């Protein structure tokens, strides 16, 4: 049963991150190519809707948001251990993602003399990512999460 729940969670992770990426591509194109604005804007908003729709079953219904945002006083020793490990991995992944974006930004400007805009949706996505990454790691690795019991 735990494996079935985990496979479902992994599917939701894939969709959530895919729509987040597509949303950023759409909003980036809006800034780069003005003639596509309306259509791409609509696509970007549609992707945002799918991000929200996959966020709720993946992070809220499973209790992972609460687990990763609760102080260690309210957790037992196993929960502290798994959240600590997830936070450690999330910190590493998040740092790499942010540094890669900054690297692309610098390379675009320095090497190609082009502008790679760091837009409001991109920064908002990074804030969102910082909050969901630990829960995403737990959803990917754990057999049982608080909202499910096998």
């Amino acid at each position, binding site marked *: 049963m735990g494996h079935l729940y985990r496979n479902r969670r992994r599917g939701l992770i894939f969709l959530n991150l895919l729509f987040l990426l597509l949303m950023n591509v759409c909003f980036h194109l809006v800034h780069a190519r003005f003639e596509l604005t309306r259509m791409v804007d609509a696509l970007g908003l549609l992707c945002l809707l799918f991000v929200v729709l996959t966020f709720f079953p993946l992070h809220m219904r499973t209790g992972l948001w609460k687990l990763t945002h609760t102080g260690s006083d309210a*957790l037992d020793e*196993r*929960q502290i251990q798994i959240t600590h490990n997830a936070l450690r991995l999330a910190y590493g992944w998040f740092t790499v993602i942010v540094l890669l974006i900054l690297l692309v930004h610098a390379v675009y400007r320095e090497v190609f003399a082009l502008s790679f805009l760091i837009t409001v949706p991109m920064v908002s996505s990074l804030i969102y990512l910082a909050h969901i990454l630990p829960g995403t790691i737990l959803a990917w690795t754990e057999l049982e999460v608080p909202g499910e019991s096998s």
Partner: protein
Amino acid sequence: MKGRRIYNRIPLLRQERGLSRKKLAEIIGVNFQTVGYLEREQYNPSLDLALRICEYFELPVEQVFGIEPLPPLSAMLSPKRTDDNRP
């Protein structure tokens, strides 16, 4: 570092006392899923948690936990039957 597997008799002792995982979790102060992980021997408890469990079941640590698979309690209660002591 991944620790070695610690075996336990928690499922047997819990069922013997007619407790649900939730009830036992409340008594020993952990999440009910942690009891599941302990029973499946997928999580090794800390010394503090292991002592709390033993305290509740009123048993010495070596009868609840072990580093080798624990023999069934019936084997400990009845003397070993050999050909010598058969009538």
